[in-house]
């Protein structure tokens, strides 16, 4: 970094000619427009040091991905240039930027699934064999060597479709490196990884840095930025609000404030959504504290890292004699960490279950665990987190509860009604709501309009459409209006209720899902990775919505691979391992204990 840390917009560091000469990567006065939307506006950035990991952070829609794509030459800028090793290129010239040694590793992978690893890697090689003929053995040997060289353990003969997310990422990075690139742009590399694989990725990045590779990394989680990055830059609303700054010179709180506060309208929006649209989870007039508290929660200083005696409360999964109060009285997450009051349930209260899963078993499929006599209950107003390494039965649990997957044995009760033979529509009428992890295929219909997406479940399952649908006949006019009411109530930013869903950004899209899935009649909300890929504001909104729903009497089944999220929201956490519910944890939670439980089960080891 040239110069010491400079925080804030006013005294932002302005690049000089001298800087450009010593720049490994940079851009000048970039402007990118998509139609009427300005994604980047006069963005100038300089990264001086090679062999470092440079992070870019910001909210959803801040322009991070666009910046990556422009720098890697994948998106054409309206104006501005990209500099690589002190040479300026007109933005958008992929071939030249690539030749200069910049490669982008995409947010979602673009490898052909029916290729072997060696074939897929060979496919992207600029230098093709003479006559386009290859010897299978030869390219397998070649890529086995390369993968080994970069420290990745992936067999070149395996099919791309069989790879785990981290292996796919490894192949993508290998692809990028083997073109001779010295500068790799990673767009949200951690978003696709299970939490246990993130440390491995970071180790690999650090090793590659030793060999002089420079990384530009987009990330969401400050904890991860802190763990791996050498410098950090912050984007907000398409502008630079923090020029690349050494991590040593800035605190997480400062970064968080820059992400949140500069776009103060954004954080007010989410906070006021809590207050207005969702009925005020927080009475505190000092709304700012809400944000700060949740920012803390996100990167862990709030509670998870609060020293907790090892071997925190933990027991074999069993019926809980008491429920944990506290979350409902106050929207803050910090309370979870600071001990909880325990209230004994009255006998009448004990009967109020939102969900009872009793010894349910399902067949396993494609390396994914089915359920093995899985049991879990969610009381009215309770949030139960499901933790586990991916593929330990979480998907099967969600699918059987929602009604997408039949089960072989056991019972599932929603609001104490056996749903064995009930269709999804009937379950929804009981009060089942579902926030799927797979937003683009399960949660929304991208080519359908916003109002259709906001009202789809109500119309299809037959609830909450009074006046607009009668005995199968519907009034499109009234439905549109109802849909629009919900969009407004959840502060979705849109231009027309008739616009296509695919035009919305990630956080906004999830608001539409919430608008549909969180209502007064919800009795059980199955929330599956509800904040994955969302920024702080979006995360805050989802959390507030779930807390509010719980305090209004819905049970929440929260399946998440984000431990911070589980800690922040769950009244208790059930650990799924090999399709069984093996442990149950109560606050205050301990990251290490949960980690061990997820891998092996604490009490069994």
């Amino acid at each position: 970094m040239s110069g010491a840390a400079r925080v804030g917009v006013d005294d932002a560091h302005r690049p000089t000619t001298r800087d450009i000469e010593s720049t490994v990567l940079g851009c000048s006065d970039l402007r990118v427009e998509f139609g009427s939307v300005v994604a980047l506006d006069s963005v100038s950035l300089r990264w001086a040091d090679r062999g470092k990991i440079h992070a870019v952070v910001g909210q959803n829609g801040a322009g991070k991905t666009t910046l990556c794509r422009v720098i890697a030459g994948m998106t054409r800028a309206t104006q501005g240039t990209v500099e690589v090793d002190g040479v300026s290129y007109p933005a958008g010239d992929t071939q030249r930027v690539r030749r200069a040694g910049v490669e982008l590793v995409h947010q979602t992978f673009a490898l052909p699934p029916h290729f072997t690893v060696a074939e897929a890697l060979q496919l992207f090689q600029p230098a093709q064999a003479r006559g386009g003929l290859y010897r299978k053995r030869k390219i397998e040997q070649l890529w086995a060597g390369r993968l080994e060289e970069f420290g990745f353990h992936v067999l070149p003969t395996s099919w791309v479709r069989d790879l785990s997310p981290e292996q796919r990422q490894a192949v993508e990075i290998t692809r990028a490196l083997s073109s001779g690139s010295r500068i790799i742009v990673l767009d949200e590399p951690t978003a696709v990884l299970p939490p246990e694989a993130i440390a491995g990725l970071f180790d690999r990045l650090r090793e590659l840095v030793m060999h002089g590779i420079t990384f530009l990394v987009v990330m969401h989680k400050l904890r991860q930025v802190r763990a791996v990055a050498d410098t950090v830059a912050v984007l907000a609303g398409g502008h630079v609000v923090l020029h690349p700054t050494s991590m040593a010179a800035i605190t997480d709180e400062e970064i968080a404030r820059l992400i949140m506060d500069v776009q103060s309208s954004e954080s007010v929006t989410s906070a006021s959504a809590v207050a207005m649209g969702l009925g005020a989870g927080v009475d505190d007039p000092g709304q700012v504290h809400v944000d700060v508290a949740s920012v803390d929660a996100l990167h862990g200083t709030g509670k998870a890292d609060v020293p907790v005696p090892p071997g925190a409360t933990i027991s074999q999964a069993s019926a809980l004699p008491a429920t944990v109060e506290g979350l409902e009285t106050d929207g803050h997450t910090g309370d979870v960490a600071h001990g909880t009051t325990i209230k004994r349930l009255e006998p009448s209260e004990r009967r109020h279950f939102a969900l009872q899963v009793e010894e349910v078993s399902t067949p396993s499929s494609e390396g994914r665990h089915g359920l093995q006599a899985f049991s879990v209950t969610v009381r009215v107003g309770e949030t139960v987190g499901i933790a586990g390494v991916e593929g330990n039965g979480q998907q099967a649990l969600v699918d059987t509860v929602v009604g997408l997957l039949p089960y072989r044995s056991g019972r599932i009760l929603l609001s104490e009604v056996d749903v064995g033979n009930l269709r999804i529509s009937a379950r929804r009428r009981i009060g089942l709501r579902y926030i799927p992890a797979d937003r683009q295929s399960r949660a929304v219909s991208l080519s359908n309009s916003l109002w259709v997406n906001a009202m789809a479940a109500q119309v299809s399952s037959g609830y909450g459409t009074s006046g607009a649908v009668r005995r199968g006949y519907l009034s499109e006019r009234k439905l549109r209006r109802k849909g629009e009411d919900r969009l407004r109530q959840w502060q979705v930013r849109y231009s027309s209720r008739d616009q296509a869903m695919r035009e919305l950004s990630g956080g906004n899209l999830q608001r539409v899902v919430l608008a549909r899935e969180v209502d007064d009649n919800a009795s059980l909300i199955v929330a599956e990775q509800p904040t994955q890929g969302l920024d702080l504001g979006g995360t805050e909104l989802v959390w507030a919505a779930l807390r509010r729903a719980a305090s209004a009497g819905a049970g929440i089944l929260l399946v998440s691979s984000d431990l911070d999220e589980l800690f922040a929201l769950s009244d208790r956490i059930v650990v799924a391992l090999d399709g069984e519910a093996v442990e149950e944890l109560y606050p205050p939670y301990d990251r290490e204990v949960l980690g061990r439980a997820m891998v092996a089960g604490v009490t069994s080891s």
Partner: protein
Amino acid sequence: MNWHHGVSSAGRVLVALVIALVLVSIAFQTGGYSATGTWSAVLTGAVTGPGSLEATLRYALPLAFIAIGVTVSFRGGFFNAGAQGQFYAGGIVALYLSLVLPASMGGTLVAFVALIAGALAGALWSIIPGILRIFFNVDEVIGTLMFSFIAIYLVTYVSTGPLKSPTAGGQVAVTRSVPAAVRVTPSSGLSVGMVVAVLLVGIVVWWLLHRTRFGFEIGLVGRNPIMAEVQGVEIRRIGLATFAVTGFTAGLAGAVEVLGPVGNILSGYDPNIGLTAILVALVGVLAVSGALVAAVLFGGLTAASLYLPLAIGLPSTSLVFMTGLISMLVTARLGWGKWPQRARQGGDRRSKALHDWGESTPLQAGNDGTKLEPVTLDRPGSVGSHA
């Protein structure tokens, strides 16, 4: 869809028509025919000549019936390509009933029963491949086309076998004629009743699509079956229903054709009507109103193609070229104003072809790019049949 969406699709179709007109004119001119002379002959044959307008509407009628039903299937994401067979099934059953029902019932009642029975026969002919598709994952294009072949041979069978006309010569494969009292149109092929019928079917289907939960759910399933299932849509029921509706209108078209203008069944009659009607539905941008307008356009071209050989010696197939061009150009979605937006979507740029109702094609399954096989469809009997 809202009105400006409708206007923009209509505009796009018009642009495609103009381009097709220009290209065909060039083809005529280079082929040695005067383009202006040809077009004035087309106009005479389709609109201004004596009886031309009647002929246009006569050929538009069955196309409109079928295209309205095809619209429903395509909106639901199912590429039901078997309208030809469903059309034949309706024709055969209608003819059979017109021959066996007692004349004492009265011609009108017999005609009514025969029309409804023909429509139901078409529905049955469509539902069978529908069941194969939805419960056994047999590709619906293959299934419906195979059922068309069966129907084609059935037509040959009835016209040479059980219903063969005793007065026809040995080589002519034609059935006995529909009793005059049962005929629903004069031999011109047009009657007020049938025009009303097609408008009525159009209104009912429009209402189904836009004013009922059923239509709403068709729109969900067609664009993203997985999302639809998660919302509580009975996707299998919706799928079967769309197959039934398509078959019903195609069967009705077959019954009207036999009881109306044709009056009997000749082996291999109207061999292309099913596929043409699919084009009509696509050119009509999968809207009921669009299907009606496109049916008249294609009916006019058919009428003109019969007139051209007489008027200027141009073979009638010359206009097949034109229908093909129009269909290609319309379905290619000439949205040049949208290229930058498409580029922005990057890898998300799925085929924008066949229609603009969804952002992609029914051929291509879910319009959100999700697989057409909903999560449970490839496992027969999963949802709703829990342990």
